């Protein structure tokens, strides 16, 4: 754990401190480009049209060139992404423009060949449109990346505030105090766990960490809870198939498990089990968390806040590629989180 900080890979902080190209392999970026370009085409078609019939004609004419050029550009960028990501922003952007223009010209040329028509009246207009739309999209993604940096700072602050539940800290300290005379060795271990946990709580949440780290922090947290809750808390880990090198936002698992203890174990007198299953399915990482459900304790605050914060951070890091669902399943509360499987390059 001590090497944890150096193991972290800075992904978002680089993007926010200096400009970077968007991830051309991310579903969110591709979807935004598709929608943005088609919307621009619609505007261009509408600008030249007198009525609705003409608009449809214009759109059809534009689409014949635009759609293959757009798809071709996106596929080229998808393929070129690892290379582009290594280049400085300006050089990368210039190459993006070059790719888009080349693909557009290629499509126009193919079209002319197919139609046996070499007059090609719209070439200049099509290339100008391609450059304009690419510039607009580049500006959009840059603004969006910049807009994220305050949001991340805020998320970090929120995470910190939501995390330091005085209830947990003071009860844990009290439990450690009770150990000092009877079992000094265990008391030492508990204070070490507490220190590690708080180091993590105060770390930068803008950078991604490994799933392995996240599991480790959660284990330390659960050690502390075991200390005060004793037999009432049972934990079943199913992490044999967990992709431990997967990159995840820090403090993703621990707050969810803390919620599970707070809402699922503490309100009960009987022994309760928290089940944590983490596994990989293709290029997706699944986290499933189950705890006993106590309907009469839903007035306890904090659950929705913690969930909202995690949802927000998942969206910031993974955009539309992550989901978080929660609900009552039988006698249990279940949370199912899905993230893309990303690794340190």
């Amino acid at each position, binding site marked *: 754990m001590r090497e944890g900080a150096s193991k972290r890979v800075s992904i978002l902080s680089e993007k926010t401190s200096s400009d970077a190209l968007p991830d051309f392999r991310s579903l969110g970026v591709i979807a935004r480009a598709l929608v943005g370009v088609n919307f621009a085409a619609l505007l261009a078609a509408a600008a030249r049209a007198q009525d609705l019939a003409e608009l449809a004609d214009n759109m059809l004419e534009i689409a014949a060139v635009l759609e293959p050029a757009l798809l071709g550009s996106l596929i080229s960028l998808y393929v070129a992404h690892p290379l582009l990501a290594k280049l400085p922003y300006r050089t990368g952007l210039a190459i993006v423009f070059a790719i888009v223009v080349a693909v557009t010209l290629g499509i126009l040329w193919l079209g002319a060949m197919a139609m046996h028509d070499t007059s090609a009246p719209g070439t200049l207009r099509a290339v100008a449109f391609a450059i304009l739309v690419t510039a607009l999209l580049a500006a959009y993604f840059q603004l969006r990346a910049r807009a994220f940096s305050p949001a991340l700072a805020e998320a970090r602050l929120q995470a910190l505030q939501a995390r330091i539940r*005085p*209830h947990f800290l*003071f*009860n844990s*300290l*009290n*439990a450690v*105090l*009770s*150990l000092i*005379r*009877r079992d000094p060795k265990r008391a030492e271990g508990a204070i070490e766990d507490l220190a590690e946990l708080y180091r993590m709580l105060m770390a930068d949440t803008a950078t991604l960490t490994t799933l392995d780290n996240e599991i480790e922090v959660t284990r330390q947290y659960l050690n502390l809870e075991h*200390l*005060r*809750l*004793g037999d*009432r808390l049972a934990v079943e880990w199913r992490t044999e198939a967990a992709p431990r090198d997967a990159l995840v936002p820090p403090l993703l698992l621990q707050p969810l498990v803390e919620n599970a203890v707070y809402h699922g174990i*503490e*309100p*009960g*007198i009987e022994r309760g089990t928290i089940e944590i299953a983490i596994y990989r399915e293709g290029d997706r990482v699944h986290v499933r968390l189950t705890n006993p459900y106590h309907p009469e304790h839903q*007035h306890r605050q904090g659950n929705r806040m913690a969930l909202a914060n995690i949802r927000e951070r998942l969206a910031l890091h993974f955009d539309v590629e992550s989901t978080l669902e929660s609900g009552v399943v039988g006698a249990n509360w279940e949370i199912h989180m899905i993230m893309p499987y990303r690794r340190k390059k």
Partner: protein
Amino acid sequence: MSSAPLRVFIVDDEAPARSRLKELLGDLSAEVPNVVVGEAANGRDGLLLLPAAEPDVAFVDIQMPQMSGMEFARHLAALERAPAVVFVTAHGQYAIEAFEVNALDYLLKPVRAQRLAGALAKAAATGPASRDALARASHGPRRFLSVAERGKILLVPVAEVLFMKAELKYVTLRTRERDYLVEEPLTSLEQEFGASFVRVHRNCLVARNAIRGFERAGAEDGEGAGWSVLLDGCEERLPVSRRQWPTVKAIVNG
């Protein structure tokens, strides 16, 4: 204060918290003579064990499963020889204010020996907290009603009560099994349990989810025809007063 050591009872759902408190009380025994006469991990066990232990002071954790420390203390108040209660909580100042525990005696976790000594001395001097102060500090309706019988505290789950009926100075609680008498005004019960009980008559509240239907009754009465309410698991028909009829009907229909 007599020379006899103070008898102390501890209720906390966390075992380490109980042993820490015992440790500190042991350290203080020279300064403030005391003896721990019992402990419990939750409110229900506490109510079973505490009366026989006859403590002078009870240290009670506020946040406990199933029955909060606050509700536990309210049930204790039914005892003839109720101990002074000192609440113990890990919550900060904000929560203390929200709970209105200010009016009562409390200690923050982790507990310091000197504060504990102060609380012990004070509790011995002031005796049990008033029922009113406890009721004010309570959050939401209780989950049990308590009845003192032969020096023990019987807990009646509010969810099992079919109706509450005021008779002279007592209120009768009827469950499927039997009747209980409690010494609380019907009006304050109505205020506390208004979400699950409805007033059908000047002297009677019935559990909303126990209502099975209504029956035309008392046509031979000089007053003319009225309605009675039929309850699940109970033969007795309870008259609905004319004044309450529109409210009762609206609740059942809506």
